[in-house]
């Protein structure tokens, strides 16, 4: 943490405490000079301006700094006048607060870099310790916890006494403990209490705080801190197992999603569809097109874009699948290896077609707001997009399972899988079932594309990166058994994620491949193989 930043924060907090204590009236001169510095388009000047404005105690300080953060603060380089564009579109002069008709033509937004952005955040944090919004108070307490700045203690103490909200109170208590830990003249009892509070918090930051303590501690405190570190460490190690398991589930869900369509085409029909990955890609591009249309025509619907894309992707990829089945694959039944080659050729054609139509570069598919960000569960971070993908995958799996079990098409499909000739003689139109089955498998791949567009590139190469993994999952799980695919996908996902921290991403992946090769030797037909005479025929 930069010393300069700490100085500023100290000054700021002092100013606030003074402001709280005396409600001092704002002084005019230096404040206006400070505001004018925003117009210099120089990062150091802006930096100084932020400090000066934040500590000024002027009622315009908060509007100015929050406008700066949102890019609503503009400056005219010629007249050195600075303006705030308010949320309702009205413009005021930042130095005086007087309303202005409109922005001068040559006014430009005041630029920021990361350093300044941090300064802005800190300034806002200090300005919001007493904010009416509890969330902002917690955020402010967090930044004090990280900076453990002594001068904030009186404010924190005051705030803590008045605070009624339980979680804000806890945050303040933690911030207070952090300050006390680093405060040289705090008593041993205070410090020991502080260690206990920080230990209870038990996360990465608490650990950083404790490990950062110097060596000049009273022996009791040092012991307590050491044991707290050890306890947090073992706690974190436990959580990291949970985290790995979660990552594994999440990777497994991606694998399952990519492989489940293949489990149908390969498992039910015995067709090796090397163009399966391209069906995924088509689904992703469908999402892209849907989002483009929504962006340009109905921007309000953006959050629903994925919901709209799912059925469309299913239809697009499914239709292409039916076309492929009718046009190519049906001539190749009983010749699985030839099917493999033909569909590989097809995958080249589809890739190049998409490359020609959409260009070779990645296309942007945005995350809707409900799929952005993350939340904390205990000590692990769970991102919404991964969580939704996991739920979505399981939903697709359940629906598919139900479909196979309870619908006429499902019944016919199972009949055809188990005994094609018998099914045909029972009056099932096997060729129609084939086309629909293949369409279903491809459609599901298309749906997978919608989900994968949220975490991966949308480019013509998208499908290729999943094809080998998908085949591994299906073969590992056992052909013709959806449960096998489920178990296979999650097993591989979790195994991969537990190997990765030990062996690294590359070696982990190689190890998984080698294990699969060896596993296939042991069980040539996968985890959940169908036994019996029928499969030999």
């Amino acid at each position, binding site marked *: 943490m930069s010393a300069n930043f700490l100085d500023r924060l100290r000054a700021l907090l002092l100013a606030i405490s003074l402001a709280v204590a005396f409600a001092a009236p704002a002084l005019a001169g230096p404040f206006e000079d400070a505001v004018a510095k925003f117009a210099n388009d120089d990062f150091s000047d802006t930096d100084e301006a932020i400090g000066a404005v934040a500590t000024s105690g002027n009622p315009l300080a908060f509007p100015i700094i929050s406008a700066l953060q949102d890019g609503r603060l503009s400056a005219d380089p010629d007249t050195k006048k600075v303006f705030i564009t308010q949320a309702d579109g009205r413009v005021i002069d930042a130095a005086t607060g007087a309303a202005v008709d409109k922005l001068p033509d040559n006014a430009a937004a005041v630029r920021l870099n990361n350093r300044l952005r941090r300064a802005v955040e800190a300034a806002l944090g200090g300005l919001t310790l007493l904010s009416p919004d509890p969330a902002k108070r917690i955020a402010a307490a967090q930044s004090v916890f990280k900076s453990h700045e002594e001068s904030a203690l009186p404010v924190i103490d005051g705030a803590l006494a008045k605070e009624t909200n339980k979680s804000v109170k806890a945050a303040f208590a933690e911030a207070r403990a952090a300050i006390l830990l680093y405060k040289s003249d705090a008593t041993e009892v205070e410090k020991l209490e502080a260690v206990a509070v920080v230990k209870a918090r038990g996360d990465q930051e608490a650990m950083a705080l404790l490990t950062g303590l110097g060596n000049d501690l009273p022996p009791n405190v040092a012991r307590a801190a050491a044991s707290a570190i050890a306890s947090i460490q073992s706690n974190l190690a436990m959580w990291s197992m949970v985290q790995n398991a979660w990552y594994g589930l999440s990777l497994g869900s991606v694998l399952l999603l990519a492989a489940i369509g293949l489990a149908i085409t390969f498992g039910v029909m015995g067709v090796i569809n*090397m163009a399966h990955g391209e069906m995924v890609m088509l689904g992703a591009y469908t999402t892209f097109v849907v989002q483009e249309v929504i962006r340009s025509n109905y921007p309000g619907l953006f959050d629903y874009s994925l919901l709209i894309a799912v059925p469309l992707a299913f239809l697009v990829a499914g239709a292409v699948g039916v076309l492929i089945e009718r046009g190519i694959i049906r001539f190749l039944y009983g010749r*699985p*290896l030839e099917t*493999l*080659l033909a569909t590989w*050729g097809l995958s080249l054609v589809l890739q190049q077609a998409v490359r020609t139509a959409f260009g070779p570069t990645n296309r942007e598919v945005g995350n809707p707001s409900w799929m952005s960000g993350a939340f904390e569960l205990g000590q692990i971070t769970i991102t919404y997009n991964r969580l939704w993908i996991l739920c979505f995958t399981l939903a697709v799996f359940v629906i598919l399972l139900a479909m196979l079990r309870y619908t006429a098409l499902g019944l016919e499909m199972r009949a055809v899988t188990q005994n094609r000739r018998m099914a045909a003689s029972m009056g099932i139109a096997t060729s129609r079932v084939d086309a629909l089955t293949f369409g279903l498998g491809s459609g599901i791949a298309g749906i997978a594309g919608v989900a994968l567009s949220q975490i991966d590139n949308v480019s013509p190469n998208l499908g290729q990166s999943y094809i080998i993994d998908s085949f*591994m999952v299906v073969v590992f799980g056992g052909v013709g058994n959806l449960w096998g695919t489920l178990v296979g996908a999650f097993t591989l996902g979790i195994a991969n994620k537990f190997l990765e921290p030990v062996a690294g991403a590359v070696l982990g*992946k190689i190890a998984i491949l080698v294990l699969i090769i060896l596993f296939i030797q042991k069980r040539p037909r996968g985890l959940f193989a169908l036994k019996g005479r029928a499969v030999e025929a």
Partner: protein
Amino acid sequence: MTPHILTRSLDRSATVFLVVVAGLGVLIPLSNLLLPSGSALQVPTYLVALFGKYACYAILALSIDLIWGYCGILSLGHGAFFALGGYAMGMYLMRQIGSRGVYGNPILPDFMVFLNYPALPWYWHGFDMFWFAALMVVLVPGLLAFCFGWLAFRSRVTGVYLSIITQAMTYALLLAFFRNDFGFGGNNGLTDFKDILGFNVQADGTRAALFALSCLALIVAFLICRAVVTSKLGKVLIAIRDAESRTRFLGYRVESYKLFVFTLSACMAGVAGALYVPQVGIINPSEYAPGNSIEAVIWVAVGGRGTLVGAALGAVVVNYAKTYFTSGPLAPYWLFMLGALFILVTLLLPKGIVGTFNAWRESRKATEKANAESAALEDGVGEPKPAE
């Protein structure tokens, strides 16, 4: 190998093939070296290198055809054996650079110098000797194929399962060789070769010699394949291809046969890779890419699976098409053509070029014979049908 195996293995198309390859192997280098450059009949050096590359691909195609066409093992990882052979040769060529690398280190290849290797890794020792490298060219792919095949065939992994795990094998190797810690130059692979057996690899004479050598290797590989497929072992292989379990019930140890032919094929692929590397001047992990192996299978399918001449022909035709279409105005569309070729060949020409030609010729012969026979005598065995 006993003489009768050789004599038995030469039928008419085999002889024609051998004569053509031998002729090209002699004439092209001569024309390149002796005729003045620019004359109409002179084969420019870049074409010699190109044809040399095709010859190596043809050997690879033969090795795939031997197992796929005759034994029904569809390996989608043969590129791995090809690349292993190539790496063995590449390591020899790297060691030959000696102190002529950009850093001038007499022992360590350049990439090791800038990645701060303190000493040569143990597996690089011995590759400064040609005989050792040549041995490794055959041994390393052979050993990998033997281990892989021993595991896979013993536990009866067949058909598409085998194909998929061969893909996994080559994919795992791809990832491994990409790793810079592996000591094979990572993504950049091995390149900037100078000498082979004391001759400058870029000299026209060396190129011509390498081309002639590739043709010779093609001839030898072809003869080995012919000897195998025309022996009784060849009949057993076809029996395994057509009815594996029947063959087993006749008392043949199917896994031994598969293992033998798979290992042999891998050794051949290794030799092809070894000849390929000095001619193209680089070996890098992308040779392990799963797509490459699939493409090599396509050559065989195009030329005619189960006909050795077809496999070699397919390799040359497809690669020539690739060379041709990746230049000029058609360049953006060549992937469409390649893809369409795969689809059309499997749909319309399942026997490939040579297979279709053979079938056509035989059906004509059979019709003639049937006409003659029915005119002579009705023997009641049943009407002769054309093959399949």
